[in-house]
């Protein structure tokens, strides 16, 4: 492995397809993939009641992508700050964030996250809207 892609999968709608895109790019370039779920607030005990559904979704995405995908749960109030911290810890070379597959609102939301990340980390950020992922997925699949 010669580098690291960090992919935000906090939003279950956008996260899964962003992770697929990140995994395809990672496989092509030989990069390590770390999937991150940001959980707001205080950590819960995972032994007492099992992981929350969102983290189960994280595990499910990782399983679907294959054995090489690593997972992280970041605990913190601010989404961008938590992602930036994990990117720093993992020595990430690229952060991939998804976009909701519907409407302008979702894209604006992700654009805000990308802008916040710009201030929080020097790591480049790639916003992968669904159409980009479809096109890139087809291109990557043909090679």
């Amino acid at each position, binding site marked *: 492995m*010669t580098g690291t892609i960090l992919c935000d999968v906090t939003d279950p709608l956008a996260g899964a397809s962003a992770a697929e895109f990140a995994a395809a790019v990672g496989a092509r370039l030989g990069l390590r993939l770390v999937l991150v779920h940001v959980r707001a607030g205080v950590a819960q005990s995972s032994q007492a009641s099992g992981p929350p559904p969102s983290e189960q979704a994280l595990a499910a995405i990782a399983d679907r992508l294959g054995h090489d995908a690593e997972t992280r749960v970041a*605990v913190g109030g601010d989404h961008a700050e938590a992602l930036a911290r994990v990117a720093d810890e993992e020595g990430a*070379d690229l952060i991939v964030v998804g976009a909701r597959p519907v409407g302008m609102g979702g894209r604006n939301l992700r654009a805000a996250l990308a802008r916040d990340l710009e201030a929080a980390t020097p790591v480049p950020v790639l916003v992968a809207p669904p159409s980009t992922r479809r096109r890139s997925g087809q291109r990557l699949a043909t090679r």
Partner: protein
Amino acid sequence: MRFSRLPLLWRVFAINATLLVIATLLLVLARDQIHASLAFVEGIDVVVGLAVMLAANLVLLRHTLRPLGRLVDRMRSVDLLRPGQRLAEEGGVEVAQLVGVFNEMLGRLESERRESAQRVLRAQEAERARIASGLHDEVGQVLTGVLLQLEGEGRSEQTKAAVRQALEEVRRIARELRPEMLEHLGLVSALTELSRKFADQSGLRIERRFADELPPLAEEAELAVYRVAQESLTNVARHAQATRVELTLEPGAGSVVLRVVDDGRGIDESVAANGRGGLRGMRERAVLVGGALAVKRARGGGVEVRLEVPAAGA
């Protein structure tokens, strides 16, 4: 709430709104000069126009002052252990200048912090080496002399065993304080020796996987890898309740990656993120050599410590 305590956005908005309302009232009251028969509908038009102007004023002000809000947020959350956090210099000239000055100040703070932490770590290592040398050369020699004397006098085996044990302890502490193996035989040999000793002392099974060819590291980066491995293994022995530890050293992207993974009870992510003491020390070492350190839950439970340090000249 006093006017001066209001946020800047609302103070400017209140002033602008007051002026706009006064201007509108003047317009309405001076209707004779503008329109002879101002009807009710026209009055509504004026009110709607005023509301639109106020809303536009608020939106524009909010947009103009937003970089200030981001600056305040960044000032509150900035962490010098995560260098490189900078704000885009946007907004009006003054705001952009303020952000620019803040970014420059952050650069200076990061640089000064890095230099002072480097000095502290160097002093710490020098002090450790001095203590290790004192233990080995002075206390060790005295104990060896005592042991020889006891053997010459034919004292009991129990007394001699106690002195031998003390001598071994002194040597062990000296070795831990100053990793001579690192200086003489390199990182892989030093980590092999460290993990072998750790397995002997803790009784844990340790699996080593060191890549055959690793990029060369600067002396300080090698020391950082060694110290992080040492601290991680100590944490496993103290807190993890593990039965097995995996120690891996592999090449990365112009870097070397160390992984210490145990099968113990794991760690809470918030504890790992806000770690104090040993964890913070490891993070500082990583930052000083331009590396990245992650302490996280391992895939099969337990804890994974991952340190990536740049290769020499990378």
